[in-house]
């Protein structure tokens, strides 16, 4: 934009304005305008969505919603909140050891063939649509193993979805640890195990924890893989891992918005507020942690 009034050094040593063809001026102006409009569109849409989620969500969010279970066309979301927590934490419990192990292997043994295979397949696994994971869970665990709709089936499917994210963030965090530290540790006679577990992992911990938080956000926001693995229940979780379905917040959004009752719709808005608020909070926190640790 500034260059529309650029100057050049003239023959007599004075600055003279550059004469630009009017087509260039117009195309430059049009270019900036359309780029600005694109960004404005994007922010406008974000504001529009947030406005709906927060305005309708807060007006629907009452103490009863947080303290009672779902009853018919109304009630509360306590069962769904508990279910989302159980499923997501269960998924993390399963995914963190394996995801971290693969991340460590990919980062620390990056010269090996197996590491490049794992790294590439982690990227591929990210690309598998979540509904395909859900259908796989339905076919294998719900049907074949006969677990029915259950916490175990839902949590295992969510864990597979989280695996590649945890693997990749662990790998990135470990790659930030300077190689000299490893060399120094090896020079002092430390074994692989000691170098990785006592030297590198502690140094990379903030980055890894951030990755785990992001995986938590992903599993809290998932719907499709849970529909046919976790099912839905209007009651609190009975503690069984198999053979009993469990509720979760994203299901409430999907189902209750289709009901013709204002009380059911209000539950959907409240659930949307809880899920979106939680997910956005984690993402903002993660963004700042990652910035500080320079990943």
């Amino acid at each position, binding site marked *: *934009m500034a*260059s529309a009034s650029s100057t*050049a050094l003239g023959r007599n040593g004075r600055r003279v304005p*550059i004469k*630009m063809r009017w087509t*260039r001026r117009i195309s*430059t102006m049009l270019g*900036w305008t359309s*780029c*600005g*409009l*694109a*960004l404005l*569109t*994007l*922010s406008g*849409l974000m504001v*529009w*969505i947030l406005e*709906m*989620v927060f305005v309708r969500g807060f007006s629907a969010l009452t103490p009863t919603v947080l303290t009672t279970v779902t009853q018919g066309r109304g009630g509360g979301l306590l069962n769904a909140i508990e279910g989302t927590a159980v499923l997501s934490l269960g998924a993390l419990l399963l995914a963190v*050891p*394996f995801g971290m192990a*693969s991340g460590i*292997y*990919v980062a620390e*043994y990056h010269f090996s063939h*197996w590491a490049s295979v*794992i790294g590439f*397949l982690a990227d*591929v*696994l*990210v*690309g*598998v*649509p979540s*509904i*395909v994971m859900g259908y*796989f869970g339905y*076919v*294998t665990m719900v049907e074949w193993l006969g677990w029915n709709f259950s916490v175990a089936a839902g949590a295992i499917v969510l864990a*597979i979805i989280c*695996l590649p994210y945890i*693997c990749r963030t662990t790998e990135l965090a470990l790659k930030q640890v300077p190689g000299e530290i490893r060399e120094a540790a090896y020079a002092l006679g430390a*074994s*692989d*195990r000691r170098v990785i577990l006592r030297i590198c992992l502690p140094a990379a911990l903030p980055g890894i924890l951030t990755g785990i938080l992001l995986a938590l*956000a992903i599993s809290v*926001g998932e719907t*499709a893989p849970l529909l046919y693995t976790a099912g839905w229940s209007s009651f609190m979780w009975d503690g069984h891992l198999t053979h009993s379905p469990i509720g979760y917040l*994203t299901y409430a*959004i*999907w189902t209750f*918005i289709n009901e013709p009752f204002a009380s059911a719709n209000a539950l959907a808005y409240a659930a949307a507020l809880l*899920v*979106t608020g939680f997910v*956005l909070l984690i*993402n*903002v926190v993660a*963004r700042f942690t990652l910035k500080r640790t320079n990943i």
Partner: protein
Amino acid sequence: MRFRNWLAILAGVLPMSLVVILVFLTVYAWPAIRFNGWGFAFRDMWNLGNLYADSVTSGGVSIQPGAEYGILFLIAGTLLSTLIALMFAIPVGAGAAVFLAEAIPGQLRTWISLFVELLAAIPSVVFGLWGYVVLIPFLGHHVFPFMSSTLDLVPFFGGPPGSGYGLLTAGIVLAMMVVPLITATLRDALVSQPVALKEATIALGATRFEAIRYILLPRTRGVLIGATFLALGRALGETMAVLMVSGNALNYLPQNIYSPISTMAAFIVSQLDSALQDPSGLAVKSLAEIALVLCVISVAVNAAARLMLAAWGRRLSTVEGA
């Protein structure tokens, strides 16, 4: 056993799970694959057959009489909605990336980028909710009728404007979900370009925008293509948002861009309940075949995107000597 071997075994769970998913889906869907043949992708017919008759055996597979499975309408819906999404997402995403990288200074850029890219973090069911509650009434009552009457003579834009559920709505919602991917990736690439290039171009008399348009954007074309493929992969497999705004058409090819559609991912969710009514079990297995097709397509698209982005990263690191 050595520490490294233990680690390798634990790490093997990740590739194992991908293999297990593919193998189980293939084995489970095998009778359907045999029965449906290649015509699966070209027939426009999803028909469970007569559910009250006894199962008959055809070609070694137990089916209900009259059952026929073809997903041409799903393939059309998936491809068309994704195409519309990319047609919106690429220009908007690239434009926003250029403006963020080149027109907004330091600290402000961080904040606005964060705000816009958080769009990618919003769960898909919330996009669906927004589409269902806000976007569909708006488009269905005001925009589509107006578009259909003014663009009556343009192919695919005329005709009945529908109720707001359909191809264009699904495309718009999908575009919003994938646009942050394009913006974030391209913005990073633009910011990491050497300043000297831009300075040299401006010194030759180009405006800043011309420097971006003719020098920086062509250099980052590879990134844009890679990011587009990532977006494509995400849009193809998107379920909940599409399910809530697409109108869930069955055996119906879209007539114009307001027509109801369904996509492969959304169809799996919307049809499982009725597929379970099929006593021969072939309907559920055909759904598994859809899942398998979808899985293979998305994996291929995603792998291509990763390879392209990786190749671009290598090229950048070799070109930037200075």
